[in-house]
């Protein structure tokens, strides 16, 4: 297999439908076979992304957002993880049905990913230049000289000063924010159409967070990329996202435009999340907490998985089947039987 057949193969992908959404996830189910039982990490997730759009996936730790992202990329460790159901459509082509060789080429070329902790996500024994250049050498068949040059250009693109010198540095020689920029550079190297960012700013402090998010927003605009931003931080989401999907226990429980979610949440969980954000004008009052804990993924409650902790719970919530995605408005859904009350309460 020659090194330059990459681009050719991708365009030769059967049935690339340029009118279909850029990325679509349909009814995705992922489970993990662990020592303690079967963990249902993703239980029927539906997502949709268009070019130039920012979708934020919001949820607590363990709700399945990272696993969804990894499923999209196709990098779930198997064993112990298995995709048991669903489709992941890139421009209408189901990636799950592609042979691995083609799937691999979609990675980094069309859909790229950046991770949370850049220090552990970058290989500590290779220089940053090596790790960037290898993308060009392996995917585009470029020579060492050319790929090195491109690597320097990438570092410039993400605004790392003295790129020419820093290309020979190792990851641990960069500060946290700089490292994250390197990760972004690595993801954008082959001009992908979709960028999945898994908690890119969680490990950084606030001022650096703002810089990185600004950089991401700028790059997205320039390239008309689709951006999937995975986070648990509602503050970060408000600035950057166009739409939000809130996940809980492996399901998307609400999807809406960013303004709608903040002003009129239509699911008790989203509402409780918003209420628990400390607000300076409510100084002196007790902090809101959502009572209870998220369920263990090996033992998800029947019916609506949020029912043990919900303020609006009724008997119907405790019984299977779990609530479907009720349409609230065009482009807006909520998986709560009583979404009208929740929304109307505001």
């Amino acid at each position, binding site marked *: 297999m020659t090194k330059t057949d990459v681009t050719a193969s991708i365009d030769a992908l059967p049935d690339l439908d340029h009118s279909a959404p850029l990325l679509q996830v349909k009814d995705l189910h992922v489970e993990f076979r662990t020592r303690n039982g079967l963990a249902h990490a993703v239980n029927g997730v539906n997502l949709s992304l268009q070019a130039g759009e920012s979708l934020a996936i919001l949820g607590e730790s363990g709700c399945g957002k990272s696993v969804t992202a990894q499923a999209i990329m196709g990098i779930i*460790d198997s064993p112990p993880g298995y995709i048991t159901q669903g489709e992941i459509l890139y421009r209408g082509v189901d990636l799950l049905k592609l042979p691995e060789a083609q799937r691999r080429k979609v990675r980094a070329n069309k859909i790229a990913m950046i991770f949370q902790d850049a220090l552990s996500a970058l290989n*500590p024994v290779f220089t940053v230049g090596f790790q960037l250049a290898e993308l060009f050498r392996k995917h585009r068949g470029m020579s060492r000289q050319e790929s090195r040059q491109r690597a320097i250009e990438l570092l410039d693109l993400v605004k790392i000063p003295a790129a020419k010198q820093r290309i020979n540095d190792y990851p641990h020689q960069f500060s946290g924010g700089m490292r994250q920029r390197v990760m972004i550079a690595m993801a954008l190297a082959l001009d992908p159409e979709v960028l999945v960012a898994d908690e890119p700013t969680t490990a950084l402090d606030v001022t650096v967070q703002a810089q990185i998010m600004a950089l991401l927003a700028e790059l997205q605009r320039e390239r008309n990329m689709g951006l999937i931003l995975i986070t648990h931080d509602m503050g970060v989401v408000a600035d950057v996202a166009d739409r939000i999907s809130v996940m809980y226990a492996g399901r998307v429980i609400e999807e809406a435009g960013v303004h709608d979610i903040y002003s009129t949440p239509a699911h008790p969980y989203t509402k409780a999340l918003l209420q628990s954000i400390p607000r300076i004008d409510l100084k002196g009052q007790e902090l809101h907490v959502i009572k209870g804990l998220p369920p263990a993924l090996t033992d998800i409650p029947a019916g609506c998985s949020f029912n043990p902790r919900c303020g609006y719970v009724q008997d119907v919530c405790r019984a299977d089947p779990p609530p479907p995605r009720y349409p609230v408005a065009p482009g807006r859904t909520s998986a709560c039987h009583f979404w009208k009350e929740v929304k109307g309460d505001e």
Partner: protein
Amino acid sequence: MGRYIIRRLLQFIPTALGTMLLLHYITSLAIQFSGNPVRALFGDRQPPPAMIDAITKRLGYDDPCLDQKGSLCIKLFGERLQSVFLHFDFGINLRMRPVTDLVAEAIPFTLKIVLVAIIFEAVVGIAAGVIAGLRGGSFSDYLVKISTVFLISVPIFVLGIVVREYVGVKFGNTLRGQDWIPDVISSGVFASGFKLEYPFASLIIPGLVLGATSLATTARLTRTSIMENIRADYVRTAKAKGLANKRVIGVHTLRNSLIPVITYLGVDLGALMGGAVVTETIFNVPGIGRLVTQAARTGEAPVVIGVVTMLALVFLVTNLIVDLLYAVLDPRIRYE
């Protein structure tokens, strides 16, 4: 990086001096409590008193500080240091032959088996460890786990005896009975011990035995290291970059996984030199190990101390080189 090197060198010097002081102190204590050992070295024989005096003087055992029990004998230590580092004099044996000569004669043989051992343990050990690590939980993994555990549990002398008797003697006899097998193989490789006529061939099996235990450790270490690294975040990133599995494992994972293994091999090199003791005794190899064992049996402490001092210094130097190598392999260490 320069600071790291200097720091290691500065650590090396007091350690080397400390080791020699320790060995010196042990010898001095022994003499202080049991008297001049030179006379006892000769056993039942009656050497002329002049000879005893000559040896005593030569070894420095006539120093008055050796009459005080517990004294550190610093001055004597100083003289010993001088003789070691300025004159390369590590002492003499009963027949007044310098230890350095004895070692020079013995070292080529020890080096040969150590070489065979290291190549064996590195190649087979790393290969087995990589296969087992990549296929965690599979049959090959269990096979490697079980065989390495057994190999570690069997003391090296048991392994050596069994190999010598079954392979060297029994199997060797069968081979020697067949005419069509070349002598190099039947009498050389499958000899029951070292044979002067086949100085390299007859050292192959002893080398394999010597490397056997270390091979098991190398395999386990490689296996553990690979299993840890394969779940690492940077491996996930490499996959997300769309790199071929071969490259993800062969370049990214391996480069990280082999760091502890290479450092172990480096340290083991020095350890093997000392561990060859048993193998040389069993296979009758005239190397350093046998030199020391025989000297120990006849009570020739000066030879034992002299050789051990030399080997300890070699060990320290090897460890120093390994530490520096570690900095080359793992960039994170360079900037500590």
